[in-house]
Structures are given as C-alpha cells and as structure tokens.
C-alpha cells in the first residue's frame, strides 16, 4: 500500500478497503462520532465517484477503484448514478459562453436558464433549427433588400441616362429638321430665280 500522506489519502484508502483492521476501526471511531468528519467521509466518497464517472482517475487509480470499491450492488448503483449525474450536469453547464472566472460557471445555470430546455435535449434541436431558420431568413431579407435598392438605383440611373439620350436625339432631330427646312427653302428660292 502507498504511504498515507494526508487525511484525504487515509479516507481514500478506507473507501477503497486498503486499510488494516486496526486502522479501519480507528478511522471509524473518529469519523462516525463527529458529524462534520462523517460528512467529510461522505463528501470524499462522492468526489471519488464523480472522478471515476468523469474518467479523471489515472489507470492505476481506476483499477484500484474497480477492485476495491465496486464490491457490492449498492456501490455499483452509486457509480451508475454518478455517471448519469456528471453527464447531466456537464450537459447543463456546457451550452453557455466561455468561462472567464468561477462566477461565470455559476451564472450559466442561474435562474435565467430554463431547466426544461436542457432536461429535454430532443426539444433543443428544433429550437436551435428554428433560431437558425430565423437568422437565415433575416439575413436573406436583409441581402434581398440591399440587392433591390442597388438594382433600383441602377435602373434609375439608366432611365435618367436614357432620358438624356432621348432629349439629345430629339434636339438633334429638331436641328436636322430645321436644316432640312432651310435647305428646302434655299433650293426653292434658287429654282424660282433660275
């Protein structure tokens, strides 16, 4: 057995069934008669279970846990529950903004978040899809509007240009008509003189 450095190590060895009978009895006498110390034992057990459930135990510790802790059905039930709990807790705390400080994690699951939203993940997908559709729709409307404005502006410019060309053509036609009339008058006068 590894050397025991701290109370935490001692508790862990106890939970994993790695203490001698004398050490075990001494620890029980000390920890069961003091409520706070007894709570410390329970807390250490929950932490150990949660670390196992999250897969954060080292290979050797995981082996120790499976060999020394999972020795009866009640303990296996704790392990199964811890797996479900860590999964649900991680899902509930994952969707929010990146963490900046300890408080940010608390805020993520604060009163503002609807628990039913994450308790029923199948409902989350349509809501996300709906949001995506609305955003895409808004973008399309925005882009369509801009495109229409540009097209209208272009058409207006072309219309103005056409009007200008038409006016020029009209003036040119008038000038030419006047010149033709002058030439006809000149031709008539020369014919009368001749």
């Amino acid at each position: 057995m590894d050397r025991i450095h701290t109370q935490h190590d001692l508790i862990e060895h106890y939970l994993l069934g790695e203490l001698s009978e004398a050490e075990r009895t001494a620890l029980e006498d000390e920890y069961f008669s003091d409520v706070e110390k007894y709570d410390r034992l329970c807390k250490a057990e929950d932490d150990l279970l949660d670390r196992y459930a999250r897969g954060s135990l080292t290979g050797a510790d995981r082996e120790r846990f499976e060999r020394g802790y999972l020795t009866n059905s009640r303990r296996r039930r704790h392990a199964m529950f811890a797996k479900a709990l860590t999964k649900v807790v991680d899902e509930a705390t994952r969707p929010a903004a990146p963490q900046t400080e300890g408080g940010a994690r608390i805020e993520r699951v604060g009163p503002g978040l609807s628990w039913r939203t994450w308790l029923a993940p199948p409902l989350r997908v349509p809501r996300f899809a709906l949001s995506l559709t609305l955003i895409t729709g808004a973008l399309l409307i925005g882009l369509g509007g801009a495109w229409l404005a540009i097209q209208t502006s272009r058409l207006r410019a072309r219309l103005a240009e056409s009007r200008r060309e038409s006016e020029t053509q009209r003036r040119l036609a008038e000038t030419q008509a006047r010149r033709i009339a002058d030439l006809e008058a000149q031709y008539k006068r020369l014919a009368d003189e001749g």
Partner: protein
Amino acid sequence: MEKAQLSRKERDLTPEAFTKFLAILDPDPDVAGGKYEDLRRQLIKFFEWRGALFQDELADETLNRLARKIDEGEEIEKNVIALSLGIARFVFLETLKRPDNRRTEMKELSAVAAPPERREEDDDLWTVCLRECLLGVSDENRALIIEYYQDEGRARIDDRKILAARLGLSLNALFSRAKRTRDKLEECVTRCVKRKSKGRHESP
C-alpha cells in the same frame, strides 16, 4: 433481493424497548425519530464501506440489538454512536462466517460481469431516469445539485465557496443540502431504472 438469514429472535423488538431507545436518543419524540433515521443511515454506510451485503438489514439488526441492550439496562458509557459501532462490528463479523453470505457474493459477482454491450444501454437508462427524477425536484434544489456537482478539482472548490456565499450557508451546510438531494435523486433513479428495466425485459 435475498434476505439475510437472521433468526426471528434477532429481528424482533418490543415496542417498549424501541420507545426506551428513542428516549435515550432525545426526550422529544420527533427529534428522536430524526436521530434514529440519521443513526440508521450511518450504520448502512458503515456496512457499505465495510463491503457487506444487505446493508439495510444489518443496520436494522444492529439497532435492534442496541435497543435490546438499552432495554436490559445497559449503561451507555460514551455515546450511542460508539456503542452502535461496536455492535455493528460484531454483526459484520457474523455475516462473514455465514455460508449463505458466500453464495450470495458469487451471485453479486456475476452481476458485475455483465456483457459490455448492455452497459451503454444501462448508462442511457440511468440518464433518462435522472432527467425524469430531476423534474420532480424543486427548482431550487435542481439548481443546487447542478451547481454543486459541476466541474472538478480546484474549480469545483471555488464554485462551492461562491455558491455557499450566495446562499448564505457554510460549506458544511451546503454539502448536507446537496447530499440530501443527491441521495433522494439516487433513490428515485434506482426505482425508475428497476421499473423501466422490468418493462423492457417483459416486452416482447
């Protein structure tokens, strides 16, 4: 679950002996009832941490023997917990000697060696049941359990300090509250898993 083979004499307890036992725990019957339940929970944990089977029955047997001792006039020198632990150790040693206990251990071991393909399915069932059970918990306790058990290591310690400060509780009081909710949830989830597993196996 198979019952531990305790003799009828060992299990029986007179109402008078039980009343006397409660009076030793506390003069107020309501407070005494609460202390009795706390003591029973502790004894169940004792047997669980010792790796015993049928922890509930062994805890009840310990309490019955303790009540009988008090009824017979035994003086409690230190405290009830110390005396209970002494009795519990005897009860535990007796279970180790029982041959039927060894047979049950083999049965327990076969349950551990379940085929791996069942495990993932079981994990899902536990998660589904936990979601169901969480809906039956008050909003306050649901938030508490999520916040209390999020993260790991240093981050978890810091989060708990912040949470305790926000709720105006000491860290110990916060743990007790979270632990009570966790234990209740585990009981609810266990019942749900049993119910759903039974339904699954009965369906064609």
